[in-house]
């Protein structure tokens, strides 16, 4: 059984504020986004009978919002968790396990209000990462995630200038989005002159660190008419994982989880790449859109750097990519995947600040950990 077009996103919203929110703890960011999504579609909160989230327990979010759930999903595989929540919710809704699912994200990534320490489970002590990666001196994702970039550069001839161009193009999109944190235009020279965080990655090639959240409300397509918002149908989804240890990637120039997840989603959606009007690829770092364009099959191996450099993903280009400005320029709370989904929903609804004309199909590709996991969601405004 396929869930193709059986499920619709009827409510979608981000937290009221975005960026620096020292007055809200993590759980309240979840709730702020949830209340905004409830207001977005005008749903009676009593109709929500499913809760999914990452960062907080769905038990905590349900109780905080006064929801008695009969469906819970606490899948927590990093920043793409929300793509997996959409996928699992679609299956649960199609199977009649529940009728309305609320998916929330809230993270005090910058202000660190009401959150635990950095590092996360699995990275300390006698875990495999604790023994075989941590002793070599990593100090957070910027010092691990770009591990394969030099290998990619050597194997495919990607230049430092092409890598910097990813950040330049996304800033161009952010300049059209009043909610984006970083909006001033930048050049390749600016990127390469910004300080080195972890060679070959400069500051402007690394994501922002912000506070914020987002929420989605899903129901079966036959109930979508109950709401004033234009329904956004789930056309296809996919998920996969590779390794929690970046040092154990099968191939440092490509993400197996991206390939498996997106192949499943495209197959379920029954679309080809030329059908895609708008694309989001989770950009924690500048190399992710390059890996993503290739691993999702939009371009051939080794071609993504030139594809971006030639302007194909810019405003007016033939494959608009990361149109909110992305994790590099819009916002990045830590688990950014929710924001990629929110922008896909806006583009499909036709309500994005930097709206691409005539979007019918949008693809949102998420990553979890450091190429550890992946989730893909394909959305459309077309019914049948």
């Amino acid at each position, binding site marked *: 059984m396929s869930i193709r077009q059986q499920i619709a996103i009827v409510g979608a919203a981000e937290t009221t504020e975005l960026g620096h929110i020292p007055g809200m703890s993590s759980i309240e960011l979840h709730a702020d986004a949830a209340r905004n999504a409830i207001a977005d579609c005008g749903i009676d909160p009593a109709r929500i009978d499913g809760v999914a989230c990452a960062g907080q327990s769905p038990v905590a979010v349900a109780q905080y919002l006064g929801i008695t759930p009969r469906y819970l999903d606490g899948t927590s595989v990093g920043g793409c968790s929300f793509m997996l929540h959409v996928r699992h919710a679609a299956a649960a809704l199609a199977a009649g396990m529940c009728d309305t699912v609320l998916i929330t994200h809230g993270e005090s990534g910058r202000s660190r209000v009401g959150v635990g320490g950095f590092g996360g489970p699995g990275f300390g002590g006698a875990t*495999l990462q604790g023994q075989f*990666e941590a002793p070599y*001196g990593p100090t957070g994702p910027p010092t691990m995630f770009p591990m394969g970039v030099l290998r990619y550069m050597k194997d495919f001839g990607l230049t430092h200038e092409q890598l910097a161009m990813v950040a330049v193009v996304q800033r161009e999109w952010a300049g059209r989005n009043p909610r984006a944190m970083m909006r001033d235009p930048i050049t390749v020279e600016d990127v390469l002159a910004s300080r080195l965080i972890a060679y070959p990655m400069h500051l402007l090639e690394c994501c922002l660190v912000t506070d914020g959240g987002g929420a989605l409300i899903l129901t079966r397509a036959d109930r979508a008419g109950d709401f004033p918002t234009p329904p956004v149908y789930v056309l296809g989804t996919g998920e996969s994982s590779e390794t929690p240890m970046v040092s154990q990637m099968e191939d440092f120039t490509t993400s197996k989880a991206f390939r498996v997840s997106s192949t499943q989603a495209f197959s379920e959606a029954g679309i080809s790449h030329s059908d895609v009007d708008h694309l989001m690829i989770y950009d924690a770092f500048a190399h992710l859109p390059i890996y993503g364009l290739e691993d999702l099959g939009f371009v051939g191996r080794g071609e993504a750097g030139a594809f971006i450099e030639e302007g194909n993903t810019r405003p007016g280009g033939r494959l608009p990519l990361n149109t909110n400005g992305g994790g590099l320029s819009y916002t990045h709370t830590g688990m950014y995947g929710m924001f990629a989904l929110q922008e896909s929903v806006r583009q499909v609804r036709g309500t994005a600040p930097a709206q691409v004309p005539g979007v019918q199909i949008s693809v949102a590709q998420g990553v979890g950990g450091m190429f550890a996991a992946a989730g893909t969601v394909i959305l459309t405004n077309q019914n049948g």
Partner: protein
Amino acid sequence: MPSKLVPEASPETQPFWDGCAAGQLRLQRCRSCDAFYFPPRPFCPTCLSEDVVWEPVSGRGRLHTYLINHRAAPGFEAPYAIAVVELDEGPRMMTNIVGVENTPDNLVLDMALQVTFESRGEMMLPVFEPAR
């Protein structure tokens, strides 16, 4: 000055660390697949066979990829490379590169490396240096 992190063995990895203490890099080999694998576990990740043995490896490999961290971890002095070495026997491991200044000019992908050991508390940690 704070010291570098000391790895903590788990039951499944203890023989690896025992090897390091003896100045020897030891990995597990699956007898069915006749292939080495890493990180340690009491069965082969390819075929799930438990017919696996700990054996010393050559300690030789090549620099597969790396980055240079500019934000030091406790006990480290930035900038320093965090690298992945591909052993001649196949498996890859994260490592540091010692015996050479960690600059992009000095660290050329695919250069030959050999294992050496660095003292961490009571433990010995495998690291790599340019092959002589």
